[in-house]
């Protein structure tokens, strides 16, 4: 069995599966990272993913266009996060409580809307045809690497491109510097004549759009159907990954890949019948996150003003 596990084709399948499985989580985590770097705690990820999944699926179901589904998923996520912005930016409510409230609202609303749109016959489940993989010409022909990196879904490429773009934006542009300053010391930004409220609102809308795409990935790429609760905790995992990644884009990407790899690995172990308690691999990422939290301490990259409402005196 172990020789089968070490088979090159199997390892290729394992890594390729890792990239697929990590995509929705990476979209959400990278969106949340930007929100966090601006100083906002946002716990609404799971609920917004659900709304993005429902809206994206519904748009694709009725229009027949999967890309329109992705767009509608993103816009819906952004719209829900506008509500979060109203609570935490305008009303200055507690950010954690607001996030949980939005989460509950989105979970209930998505279920209600699903019933409203698709009824409750119990006879059938609505389905759509999903995206096909998009092999990159020439590159996908490269042995091993081509199969792993260049034979993925368009949204998987986009998720990893977003990591690079977010990193470049945060660390190589003036606007990125403003965002990071807002997270650490919003008063400095304010004294420069930049509206902290505007920055926070923009970040939340961007983050919401990313959560929405992450949610839409599930019915439009992975499953072809929408069922209530389809996000299955991935929004919460994204929160853990941002902490695990110490609020840095590439570390967040690494953390997401680690989570995805371990999950893919436990499925592979079961699938080929290796005698190993696969449940350990499911629990391991969360154990690692707690360890990172404990040993992170002073070296934590957490923005200094994270979670603290900004009041202009």
């Amino acid at each position, binding site marked *: 069995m172990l020789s089968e596990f070490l088979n090159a*084709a*199997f390892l290729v*399948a394992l890594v390729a*599966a890792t990239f*697929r*499985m990590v995509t*929705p989580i990476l979209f959400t985590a990278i969106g949340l990272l930007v929100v966090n770097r601006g100083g906002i705690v946002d716990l609404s990820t799971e609920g917004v993913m659900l709304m993005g999944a429902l809206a994206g699926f519904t748009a694709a179901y009725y229009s027949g266009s999967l890309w329109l589904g992705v767009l509608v998923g993103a816009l819906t996520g952004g719209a829900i996060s506008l509500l979060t912005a109203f*609570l935490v930016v*305008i*009303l200055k*409510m507690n950010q954690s409580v607001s996030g949980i*409230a939005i989460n*509950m*609202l989105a*979970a*209930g*609303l998505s*279920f*209600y809307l699903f*019933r409203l749109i698709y009824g*409750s*016959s*119990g*006879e*059938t*489940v609505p*389905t759509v045809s*999903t995206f*096909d*993989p998009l092999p990159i010409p020439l590159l996908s022909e490269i042995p091993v690497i081509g199969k792993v990196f260049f034979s993925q879904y368009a949204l998987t490429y986009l998720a990893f491109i977003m990591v690079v773009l977010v990193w470049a934006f945060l660390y190589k542009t003036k606007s990125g510097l403003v965002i990071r300053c807002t997270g650490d010391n919003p008063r400095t930004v304010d004294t420069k004549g930049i509206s902290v409220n505007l920055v926070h609102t923009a970040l939340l809308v961007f983050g919401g759009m990313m959560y929405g795409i992450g949610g839409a990935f*599930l019915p439009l790429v*992975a*499953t*072809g*159907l929408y*069922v*209530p*609760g*389809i996000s*299955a905790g991935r929004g919460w995992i994204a929160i853990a990954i941002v902490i695990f990644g110490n609020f840095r884009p590439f570390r967040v990407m690494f953390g997401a890949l680690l989570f995805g790899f371990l*999950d*893919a690995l436990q*499925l*592979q172990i*079961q*699938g*080929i*019948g290796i*005698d190993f308690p696969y*449940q350990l691999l*499911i629990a391991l990422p969360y154990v690692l996150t707690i360890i990172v939290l404990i040993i992170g301490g002073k070296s934590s990259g957490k923005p200094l003003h994270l979670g603290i409402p900004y009041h202009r005196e």
Partner: protein
Amino acid sequence: MKLTNMLIVLFVVAMLVAACGPSEPEVVEKEVTRVVKETVVETVIVEVEVKTETEAEAGAEAGAEEPTELTMVAISPNTAEDPWPQALMQSADRVIEEKYRGLDMNFEYVENVQFPDVERVGREYAKSGEVDILWFHTSYLDAVSVLREEFPDQLISITSSVYDDHKAGSNQYWMNAGPVLESSYLGGVLAGLMTESNTVGVVAAYPVDSQTMPMNAYIDGVRSVNPDAEVKVSFIESWYDPAKAREAAETQINAGTDVLFSIVFGPFEAATKHPGVSGIGFLVDQIYLAPEVVLTSPIAKWDPRIKFLIDEWWEHKVNGTPYSSPAEAIQFTMADGGNEIGPINEDLVPQEFIDQVMDIRQQILDGELVVQARFEIPESD
């Protein structure tokens, strides 16, 4: 009050109202007039297990008054899309259509009831006096234990395929769900015949009785016609994560599997992306989900269980017979009409294989072949 404070108060109220949404029971009322798809085997079901209408009417004549209506309410954490309630609702539809005992039956499925709310929701229905049969999901045993004492004249049924003691007795009946033993075996027979790679797979939720029993039956079915076939097994450790189930299926396909028994949503999507890979559904006819890959589905038929409860209720209502449930689970086999192999996709399956499956089905119905229920956790070969 400041405007912002007012907005905060308004928002909190709105949030509370919205948050209550998923906790409130969502009632799914079934259409009495729905057209029911008849299958070849349905006549067998009624003849084998349940009292004939003539017998039932004769018994009723001895009583004081014959009821003409009956209301049954099923309370569950599952949403209506889940195959389990789908099977229950489709079974209720058939009983409604049949007008069993001449009754106009009203059936409601109450979905998404969270555990802290079960007792309250059940109590409201019991107190209303308008519900004749209250049917609870297996995970609600604690609430049922309270309600059965509180409402001794209320017929309560708890449904479970988990073989723990469900403390049945008096007005609490334990309907064993294990509804797809023989039909899962037949699904395995078809998989064993259809596989060209000689590797078949099964993707399930958790390693618990309700999953391992049909899995083992499926594996036994595969081996009965193809002793050398390899079987791949995956648990996704979630009741409801189609994306992960799809990835589990991808893993098995990479390992050579070409027929996937899909006990959870998700694997069919993987099958559609790999030519030559097919799937087998679970609990309800799932060919509609992916007609290009789904071969058939073991179907759970609750019909005889519902009729059994109606008979008990009738005796209590008409003749005043006290409810006296046996302590053990009440079971219905395939020969009793408790489960059935669903329609076989003739576009994908050669006629000779269909005939072979139906021959073995007949052996089961005739008692020549007995499928053993096994609950050990299967592992991949």
